[in-house]
């Protein structure tokens, strides 16, 4: 004979949604944007890189195009961009206010930081040698061309998200289970915080799972926030549910 608590547990398990498949089932990812550890996807630069800024002589300052050429040289990644993007990166400087020497170990992170600040991201079309990445403007075709960017996000296990925070221009998708939370209500509330439909998405799945898409640091930050919220919503099984008694003559009946 099963104890009532055991029966309740079994019932809860039987009603619980099935484990959620990786997000790529909901969003067919670009073939190259598959789940993997970032160490395998991003090369390490072979030498330092210097970004020159000369306010008095702007011609002497590094442009985005020159920065990308240097990035390509020190990482071995071949970059591809369309004519429209090439036209922009040749005219625009990264936007720093001082010359910066970037250590080899930080080259990919810093270049991604400068790219995203100028509304560009990298899309990897080949993760093996020879590596080929596309430089994509978030405003391509007046924003229409970038409407499917989030579909090209990399599927990442939640436990691997910390490894991705050094890639601020990487779009990632992850699935989290929040056992103590009504995810439909939560996702409706959270939509206020999802302000860029090109790159961000929150989708409730079943009753307790969420698919989150966005830039890696943002997704990681949101996951931490949601985990905290879910933890706060946990019902302590040891606590007796209080019964509320309204006293006679009390206000607010």
């Amino acid at each position, binding site marked *: 004979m099963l104890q009532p608590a055991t029966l309740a547990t079994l019932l809860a398990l039987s009603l619980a949604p099935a484990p959620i498949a990786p997000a790529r089932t909901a969003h067919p990812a670009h073939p190259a944007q598959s789940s993997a550890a970032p160490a395998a996807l991003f090369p390490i630069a072979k030498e330092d890189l210097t970004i020159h800024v000369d306010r008095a002589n702007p011609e002497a300052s590094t442009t985005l195009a020159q920065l990308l050429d240097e990035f390509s040289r020190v990482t071995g990644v071949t970059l591809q961009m369309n004519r429209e993007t090439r036209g922009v990166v040749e005219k625009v400087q990264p936007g720093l*206010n001082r010359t910066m020497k970037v250590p080899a170990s930080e080259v990919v992170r*810093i270049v991604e930081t400068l790219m995203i600040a100028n509304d560009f991201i990298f899309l990897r079309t080949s993760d093996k040698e020879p590596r080929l990445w596309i430089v994509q403007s978030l405003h391509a075709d007046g924003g229409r061309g970038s409407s499917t960017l989030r579909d090209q996000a990399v599927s990442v296990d939640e436990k691997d998200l910390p490894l991705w925070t050094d890639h601020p221009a990487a779009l990632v998708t992850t699935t989290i289970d929040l056992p103590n939370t009504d995810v439909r209500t939560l996702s409706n509330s959270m939509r206020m915080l999802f302000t860029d439909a090109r790159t961000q998405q929150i989708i409730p799945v079943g009753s307790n799972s969420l698919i989150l898409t966005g830039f890696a640091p943002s997704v990681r930050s949101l996951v931490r926030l949601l985990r905290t919220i879910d933890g706060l919503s946990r019902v302590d099984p040891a606590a007796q549910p209080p019964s509320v008694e309204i006293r006679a003559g009390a206000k607010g009946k």
Partner: protein
Amino acid sequence: MSASTPNLRGARTARSAASALLLALSLGCTNTAPVDESPDAARPSAVDALFTPPTRGFDVKPSTTLSDLLDDFSEATGWAVLADAGDQRGLANTQVGLQGRRDVPANEVHAFVESVLVTHGYAFSLASAREPRILRVVPLRGPGASLSRSGAGPVDVELADLERWEREHPGFVLRALVRLEHADGRALANSLRALVRDPNLEVVVPVGDGRTVILSGLAPWMRETRDLIAELDLADAGTRGGSVNRTH
């Protein structure tokens, strides 16, 4: 007015008299900021770890532009400043707007520069929290405003650190969770929306079991709103205390 619908104006005027109580209550509002356990990640809640003291101060003239000010800021703090082409033009064409010269001592560099930025509609976001360190300038309002700017998310902070952020770093968009002890988060958030001056910048969102609220905005607004929530939560407790008896 019914005791179950607290008077916000009355609650505000009572703030100074109840400061000691508020302090206790603000501590009572559960500090729920997530803890980042990765060793190399930014620890925005630890203000001291993130911001080392500037090495020197500088003079600011009325004609100093925001670009010049940020150059002085970089020299004093070691933070490089990043802005896109449009914002760079805006910074270069905007004067600080002081009435006279101002000597900014080293220990006031961050607060002064960030206050000036906010006055002119800009904020900082953390672009690279470790060497080489970079702060990004983002506009607070308009289509490219901070919260909608790619890669320029708010800094998750501890509730208990809000006073320090307000005093020392008023130019960052922050985010924190407030845990309510008594009030209903959804009703409270609906009430507080009337106090949101800019919905693209200031956010009050009830989440989870209805007793947790996400706050996001600049530190002064965050601190004010947190204190107001504490008052309302306390008022709600008072109402319930007079009418509800929990038994089991």
